[in-house]
């Protein structure tokens, strides 16, 4: 009987550790699929969602995305999935005035955030930063040190009312990203 209990507990503990590890990765894989659809399927009502590695999500098109849970209707989300095997990532984005909430978060593959900045911390109307795994990398730019090669950058931009969408959508579309080997 003791042997039976040991097997039962061992199986429970090991499988639970596995579920805890794999859970966030499953969610991120679902997100990958959603982003791939945004890249490959053009839907007029959603606009151009994938432009050179930047995903401009449209609030009207969020309900059919399997990974989309509890999005804030007030927010316009912009996403940049990245893979640092291709090099360090240089991101440049327009910054709105402080009267509306705007932020950038960078997330590892397991969904943990490792970098955050908001518009109240930035002077000027444009912000550039680097994402790297190289902890020794120093730069004049702000540097976000990632723990995994793959991950996600998420921008949140607030709409004060829903009529602002087209203006703010145009505003955010000067966001760009490129992989750089040397600085």
């Amino acid at each position, binding site marked *: 009987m003791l042997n039976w209990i040991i097997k039962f507990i061992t*199986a429970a503990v090991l499988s639970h550790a596995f579920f805890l590890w794999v859970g966030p990765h499953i969610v991120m894989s679902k997100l990958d699929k959603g982003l791939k659809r945004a890249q490959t399927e053009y839907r007029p009502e959603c606009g151009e969602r994938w432009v050179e590695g930047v995903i401009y999500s449209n609030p009207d098109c969020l309900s059919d995305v399997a990974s*989309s849970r*509890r999005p804030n*209707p007030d927010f316009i989300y912009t996403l940049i999935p990245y893979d640092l095997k291709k090099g360090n990532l240089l991101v440049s984005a327009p910054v709105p005035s402080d009267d509306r*909430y705007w932020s950038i978060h960078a997330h590892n593959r397991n969904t943990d*955030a490792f970098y955050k900045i908001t518009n*109240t911390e930035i002077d000027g109307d444009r912000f550039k930063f680097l994402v790297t795994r190289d902890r020794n990398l120093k730069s004049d730019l702000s540097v976000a040190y990632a723990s995994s090669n793959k991950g996600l950058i998420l921008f949140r931009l607030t709409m004060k009312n829903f009529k602002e969408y087209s203006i703010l959508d145009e505003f955010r579309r000067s966001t760009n990203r490129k992989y750089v080997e040397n600085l």
Partner: protein
Amino acid sequence: MMQNQGLLKNTMIPIFGGILLSFMFFYQFTHTTSLAQKILGDVHINQWISHFDQSMEGQNPWLRNYIAFTGLVGSIRPEIIYLEAMYDDNQTPLLGNQDYILKGTPPDCRYWSFVVYDFNNRRIEPYEETIASFHRIELDENGQYEIIITDDLRKYPDQNAISHAGNDFNIIMRIYGPKLSYYKNKSSVPVGSILPSKEYVELDN
């Protein structure tokens, strides 16, 4: 034959039993369940469960999964406080066949909002009617908000109202850029009361 039965009884059953139990426990942390809410919330204030920046590196893995499955990604502090409620002030689940009054004092922060979602954490359509945020809510003379949550906004013209569209629901309160003292005293985050509208009218009288 006997050997197979022995293998099944002594090895396969305990292993599969362990995996099944483990999965059932794990599943609780992939949805908004009472168990997840009891175990994971930072601070419980009335029926509200608060989460202070859930995506910190090195956080506990159950919370990481809960956030990943119910909201995808969170934040690092000090930036975002989420509060969620599944019950009204009487600890009764929030039902789609009732109207409710959500009332309280706004938090001190850059942005706050209330959004209702269905029990599977999916948004309710039309999503524009499911949100009350500080950009659009009118406060009363005491600086308080009073928001009606209903299945039909036409019942409450010219009032602060949002829609659950007849769905059983939960409510998320988002506080972005909160004042830092909330992190020192987590119970000081102001939360709203949620009462069925009939009961609220009786109390008001």
